């Protein structure tokens, strides 16, 4: 990979290994890099230990989504999902266990996969992407069992409410849809941009980030990032962040959000923006908290750069991993 390619690389997705000692990151050239966190965090870490221990080409298009299960790593590229074994990857053995492709209707362009979530209740993988539909892959049998149809444009993001067995999806059409995962029916549809307090017509109406925590939902994108109470389906707090947000996460009593702009925003649930921590990439695509391992607890963010910033303490950038 030449310097020009590195200059134009973007990091789209990240996932920590189940043991918490490795980080997988997918970039715009379809490559997945595996970083060793214990090497990067060790006191005698050099510049070399911030480089990946393994880089391999997983897909043709960009790797928009990565997901770790108990022992596997799922990666999504152009219309296909590959499964890799973490134990193989740590042994630098790169061969997918399987590769699956949802049944797409269109033929001209292969739809991309933008989001994946794992439903542990029935061991299935929920996949959303460019064909406006949500496909559910039964991991037991390896077949796509259900298709949730309803969005009128492509699906940006997915979230799962395990207790209610509900799947939430946000799309380019500006709607957040809630699906009953058992029946496959759309339960609710909230069009965020129609709420005046959230709408930002100068940006657009798409929903590019979505997170849930019991009865609370966090969503944003074209409209402002907002906190919703799901039982009453009404916005409770609006966060005044500039640019569109691409990923958010609840963390303790805070909300972390990344998106356009070179900073990680810390917000309080009340709607106040507490801090904006600067980082290396000019715009951010992904944010990931490592909760799998206590000694490697960290926040990593990636975006329009070949660097992945690591925060061991949430209030400042410790160092960067780089492709």
């Amino acid at each position, binding site marked *: 990979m030449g*310097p*020009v*390619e*590195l*200059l*134009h690389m*973007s990091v*789209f997705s990240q996932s920590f290994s189940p043991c918490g000692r490795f980080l997988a990151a997918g970039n*715009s050239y379809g490559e997945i890099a595996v970083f060793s966190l214990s090497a990067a965090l060790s006191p005698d870490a050099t510049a070399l230990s911030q480089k990946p221990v393994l880089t391999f080409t997983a897909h043709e*298009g*960009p790797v*928009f989504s990565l997901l770790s299960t108990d022992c596997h790593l799922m990666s999504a590229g152009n219309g296909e999902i590959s499964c890799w074994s973490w134990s193989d990857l740590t042994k630098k053995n790169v061969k997918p266990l399987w590769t699956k492709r949802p049944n797409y209707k269109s033929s*001209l*362009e292969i739809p*991309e996969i*933008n989001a994946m979530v794992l439903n542990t209740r029935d061991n299935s993988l929920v996949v959303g992407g*460019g064909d406006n539909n949500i496909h559910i892959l039964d991991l037991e049998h390896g077949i796509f069992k259900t298709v949730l149809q309803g969005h009128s444009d*492509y699906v*940006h*993001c997915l979230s799962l409410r395990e207790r209610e067995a509900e799947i939430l999806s946000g799309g*380019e059409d500006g709607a957040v849809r809630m699906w009953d995962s058992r029946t496959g029916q759309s339960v609710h549809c909230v069009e965020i941009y129609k709420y005046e307090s959230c709408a930002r*017509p100068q940006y*657009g*109406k*798409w929903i*590019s980030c979505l997170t849930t925590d019991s009865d609370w939902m966090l969503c944003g994108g074209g409209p402002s990032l907002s906190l919703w109470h799901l039982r009453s389906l009404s916005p409770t707090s609006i966060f005044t962040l500039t640019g569109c947000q*691409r990923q958010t996460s609840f963390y303790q009593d805070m909300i972390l959000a990344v998106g*356009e702009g070179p900073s990680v925003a810390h917000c309080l649930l009340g709607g106040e923006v507490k801090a904006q921590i600067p980082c290396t990439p*000019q*715009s951010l*695509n992904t944010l990931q908290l490592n909760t799998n391992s206590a000694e490697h607890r960290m926040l990593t963010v990636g975006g*329009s750069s070949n660097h992945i910033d690591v925060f061991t303490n949430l209030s400042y950038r410790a160092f960067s991993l780089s492709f």
Partner: protein
Amino acid sequence: MSSDALKKRKSKVVRSEGGTPEMKRGRGEAEQQDVRVYNEEVELDSRDPEQDFQQYKESCESLATIMSEIQELKANGAKEGSAEVEQRRMQGCIHFMNLKKLNRLAHMRLKRGRDQTHDAKQKVDVLHLQLQNLLYEVMHLQKEISKCLEFKSKHEEIDLVSESEFYQEAPQEISRPHLTKNDPHQLTLARLDWELEQRKRLAEKYKESQSMKEKIQNSIEVKKEHLTSLQPGLNAIMQASVPVQEYLSMPFEQAQIQTEVARHLPPALYVLFVQANAYGQACDKNLSVSISGDVDEAKALSKPPEDSQDDESDSDAEEEQEKTKRRRPTTGGQLDDKRKEMLKRHPLSLCLDLKCKDGSILHLHFYYLMNLNIMTVKAKVSTSTDLTSAISAGDLLKSDTLLSCLYSSDQGRETPNPANRYQFDKVGIVTFADYVEELGHPYMWVQSLGGLHFPKDSSEGVSVGSSLSASHMENTMKLLRGRLQARLALHKQFASLEHSIIPVSSECQHLFPAKIISRLARWTTITQEEYMELPYTRHVADAGLAKESDLYFMSVVERGTARLQAALVMSPRYPEISPLFSLSLSWKGERTGRTDDNLRAMESEINVFKNELQGPRPGHQLLTNQISRLCVCLDVYLETEGQDDSVEGPREFPREKMCLRTVRGPNRLKPFKYNHPQGFFSHR
């Protein structure tokens, strides 16, 4: 009772002696003593000192009791001279006598003890002396023994043939195996004999060879004389053949003259001359080599024996220099002269002309700097057509940049010879780059062509001479030709770019849609500083991709109210290394490739996916194709932007390009990839 008896005997002795022995001796009564036959010394032997001591104590005690008895009697009123007292006094006297005797005996015993000790001591001294003598003798003998052991015979320094060889080669009468097999001394002697024999033989052989050599030398002399006598005859024949050569137009003479001149070339230029000639004859008919410069001066230079490398006494020219030095004794002037001297070129230079198919010629002048031992090159281009039209192309064919980085990172600004650093320090030259304008560039490949090799790492071996030159010749000539053609192609392209026309050849037509609305508005060259000051090029500089040797340009593409600035870095090795674009769009505010993901995607479409834009080999159309794609991408960007705006009225940029989807992926990129036969745009 026994004590009483003792007392009696003692008192007898005292009486018989009748005074101290000393007194008697003093009077000279030795005779009397002999007569008496009493010798106290004999008595001494028979007595026990322990007993004497006991006696002494008893006498003292009894003396004390007698004294106390007398005192008692006196106290009881006894008269002076009474019988009791008198008796006591007598007894006391006897005891005194006894004490005296004991005292004398003690003295005698002491004396005798002293004498005995003295005798014993004398005896010991004598024995000690004897021991010392013996020890010394032993030491001396040991020394003698070691001296004997260390004795070195002269024969040990002589290298002898090994034992086995000796038995093999030496004749029986010398080796005498029956004698020497068991006696190492005889063996050594025999080997020495053999050595002597051999040396004698070799000396004889040496004499023989010497005489042979003399004989051969004599014959050589004779032959030489014969050959020199041939010279005038040959010259005459040469002279006579000139008109024939002219008549037949065979340039033997000319070639000979050139080789004659070439003899005066310095070694480096000579290697290049020979190799370039050879390469030109074998592989490349369009390469011609000629020598220019003052031949006489070169002859003068090569005449004096080059035994001294010293700056001051090398040639006539230098003597002149010294004269001028004396005339101007200011230190500044001296240093200037020294510098000039240091940077002196050899009077002869080599000119290589490289002709291209389109009639343009690359003239390369190679110089040799005598005191620095490096070669430099100056380049000039002459073209068949007029090339003055393009302003921004000014730098392209300049001698300065034309050959820069022919091999990667070979900028030719610093001298490749590490030794020069010290020479420069002496005369106060900071960097060779200050003199490059005047002297030409000392590129690494130039040194290689001249067979000069300056290892950069100590691991590299030093390769020598013409094999080095030959190994570089073909590759370098190809690179030179490629460079010239690339530059000429760029030159032409710049001329039309300055008139806002992007030349797209028919082979590359399929890379772009038929209708491109965005237009190139401006094409100018900028300096590196100007480039660095732009807010949207920092990342390029940070990545180390904007170097001093690169060329920098600014292009502006416009459509309606939108104005896209693209700053370019172009490596001198173009098209091998593609130009790098950085974008900034001013339309509804200012956005750059740093802040806008779509502009970043456009940058990567142009910079990363350049391979499909290369066109026919060797890719001279890369730049214009990149600019065309930039226009296409701007069209797509503007037409797909803000379609969801609920603003009233007609759009500024109506959708004309066919797109499958206008946005895709988490960061909502626009479709910048053009699919040729179908004519639609899709995502990467």
